[in-house]
């Protein structure tokens, strides 16, 4: 199937999302820039999306969460109960 050059906003923003992970193809990026040139909303989306990526990199680190000591004790108790029912 031949890929079209003119894309809609839904497609454009999906390509923009892909490009945040450097996984958009050159052709996709070309289509996106044409779309953004003509579409203010998606142009704004692209700017905000790049900023969102920075926010994620700075602020989202779920691995810093820990189990608290009392939660571990609770787990042990649960396990113990089921070990010798």
């Amino acid at each position, binding site marked *: 199937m031949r890929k079209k050059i003119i894309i809609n906003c*839904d497609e454009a923003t999906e390509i923009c*999302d892909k490009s945040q992970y450097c996984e958009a193809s050159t052709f996709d990026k070309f289509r996106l820039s044409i779309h953004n040139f003509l579409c203010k*909303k998606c142009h704004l989306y692209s700017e905000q999306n790049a900023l969102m990526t920075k926010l994620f990199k700075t*602020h989202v680190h*779920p691995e810093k969460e820990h*189990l608290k000591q009392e*939660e*571990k004790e609770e*787990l042990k108790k649960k396990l113990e109960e089921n070990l010798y029912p």
Partner: protein
Amino acid sequence: MTDQQKHVLNPKKWVDNYADYLFNYTISRLNDHDLAKDLVQETFLSALKAMKNFKGQASERTWLVSILKRKIIDQYRKSNSKEGQAEVRMSFYKTGENKGKWIEEKAPSNWGNFGEKDIENEELKKTLNQCINGLPEKQRIVFLLKTVKNYETEEISNELQLSASNIWVIIHRARLKLRECMENNWFKN
């Protein structure tokens, strides 16, 4: 007994030896403390029941992780069926002559003079993480694997049995929601 040493199970040591590892594995996929804790507990309890099936070929940890993985996929599927019909808050027209165009009230609006220097901010961090935790579970899992764990699309595809194009649609939806959530709760507040 063969040359190869057989692994044995020692449930009394599970919490001390593996709770942190399993918790980290889960939290990086779900970003939800209580849910992660529950899945670790369920993993231990399922493992107890399945002890007689343990053949000693894999290490204790590998075996526990394989049980946890199934729990995470179950969680993913559960949320999948729950949320399947709830995808009403879409951003674009789905049919008609406006198909694929922004629905006006969902379109991005200006965020004012937010700059690099405003990124470091504890309140913003809190709001952002709340937005992520508010995502439907399947979107949250896929989004976090891709964005925070930096997984290759193919790895996610294998772990969750999804096609690549499916993964991108999910990430697309997640990022649309996150942008909107930050717009409403931070940038326009």
